[in-house]
């Protein structure tokens, strides 16, 4: 079975370590905040200028001056700090954020990522995605393994305009967890009940299948 959105978020959260500063993109990455283990401290960075983002506010706590990068009203945890956009991207560009999780349209086995623009459709912009992929060392891309029509999104070469070049080392899809090394996808884990063959059939870029590919455990 392909992973649900919640399972994807849960698997992302398994990458968290105590004391990590983490930037979570919009969508499934944001859901991962719901699965931070109780015995672990993780500080969420929101690139509009907040370190220590808390949950959505209660109805009476809503503050127009306190939003996240998706323009949603949020709260701050104890120990939070506020800074300018320039400072925010200095900490991103300077490699101070321990883990970045974001979505994509396509990833290829050279570590390229395309996530912001589909030619012919309206271009809304890259927001902070280009800075995040260029600045972070530890990035997880979350996406579905294939399109609804069954076309692989894990390619030998991205077809869409790039968000970043050679910067992705780990991809989590609804079917598999993969690393990217030496121009190849390396299959590390598979979703429960999903076969290696199924993953191989839906992976267009070169895939290395180790002898033992464990199922993800939740």
């Amino acid at each position, binding site marked *: 079975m392909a992973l649900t959105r919640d399972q994807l978020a849960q698997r992302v959260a398994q990458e968290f370590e105590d004391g990590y500063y983490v930037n979570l993109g919009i969508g499934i990455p944001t859901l991962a905040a719901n699965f931070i283990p109780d015995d672990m401290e993780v500080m969420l960075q*929101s*690139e*509009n*200028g*907040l370190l220590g983002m808390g*949950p*959505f*506010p*209660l*109805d009476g*706590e*809503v*503050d*127009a*001056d*306190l*939003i*996240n990068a*998706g*323009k*949603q*009203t*949020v709260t*701050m945890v104890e120990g939070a700090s*506020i*800074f*300018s*956009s*320039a400072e*925010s*991207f*200095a900490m*991103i*560009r300077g490699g101070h954020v321990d883990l970045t999780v974001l979505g994509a349209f396509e990833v290829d086995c050279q570590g*390229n990522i395309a996530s912001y*623009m589909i030619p012919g459709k*309206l*271009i*809304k*912009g*890259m*927001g*902070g*995605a*280009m*800075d995040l992929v*260029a*600045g972070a060392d530890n990035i997880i891309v979350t996406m579905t393994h294939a399109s609804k029509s069954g076309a692989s999104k894990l390619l030998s070469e991205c077809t869409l*305009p*790039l*968000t*970043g*070049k*050679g910067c992705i080392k780990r991809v989590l899809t609804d079917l598999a967890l993969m690393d990217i090394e030496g121009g190849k996808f390396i299959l590390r884990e598979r979703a429960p009940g999903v076969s290696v063959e199924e993953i191989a059939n839906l992976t267009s870029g070169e895939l290395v299948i180790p002898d033992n590919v464990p199922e993800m455990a939740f």
Partner: protein
Amino acid sequence: MSGFDKVVTSYEEALKGLEDNMTIISGGFGLCGIPENLIKEIKRRGTKGLTIASNNAGTDGHGLGLLLEDKQIKKMISSYVGENALFEAQLMSGELEVELTPQGTLAEKMRAGGAGIPAFYTATGYGTPVGEGKEVREFDGRHYILEEALSGDFSIAKAWKADRHGNLMFRKTARNFNPSAITAGKIAVVEVEEIVEVGELDPDEIHLPGIYVNRLIKGTFEKTIEQRTVRSA
């Protein structure tokens, strides 16, 4: 106005000298921390042909979206413009130009513009459409592109609290692009919620010194929320 006193009493005076075809650097992220009354004054003045650097372009009927109604903007320099139907229409018809700039690069362009740094190298955008035509250099085995600083004829920004010298404090994530935007304009105009007497702000708690601010005005703010998200108790 005298000495270091930056306070002006009307929005007309605050934007005196703003003319057609000028470049404006604006603070704000989405509708958070935008100089909403200064934008309304630009609309009232009917200034046209403007180039505006701002992370976003407002929404329909709010923020910079107001200036699209009368086609006052010629070009936007932004990282994300997907929240505005009028923007899309004018972009498609060619009446409006947009230079999409990664968010961190945009912030750094403003910071550099205000700090006398003409250009800087960044890995952001290398090998992407953003890097096309830009100088590439390799440092320690990594590729970087050269991005030029941004400066404007005017800066417009919003802060929370100021003293009469224009020493500023911002509130929560309404800080965002505001401090950097202020430094990047030849004439920096800041609207605030409260102006206090000189000496009332603790110098250690000032976020941006008044040296960057030319005109200061007290306003009242709607603070429109784009995505009101709440949790249940």
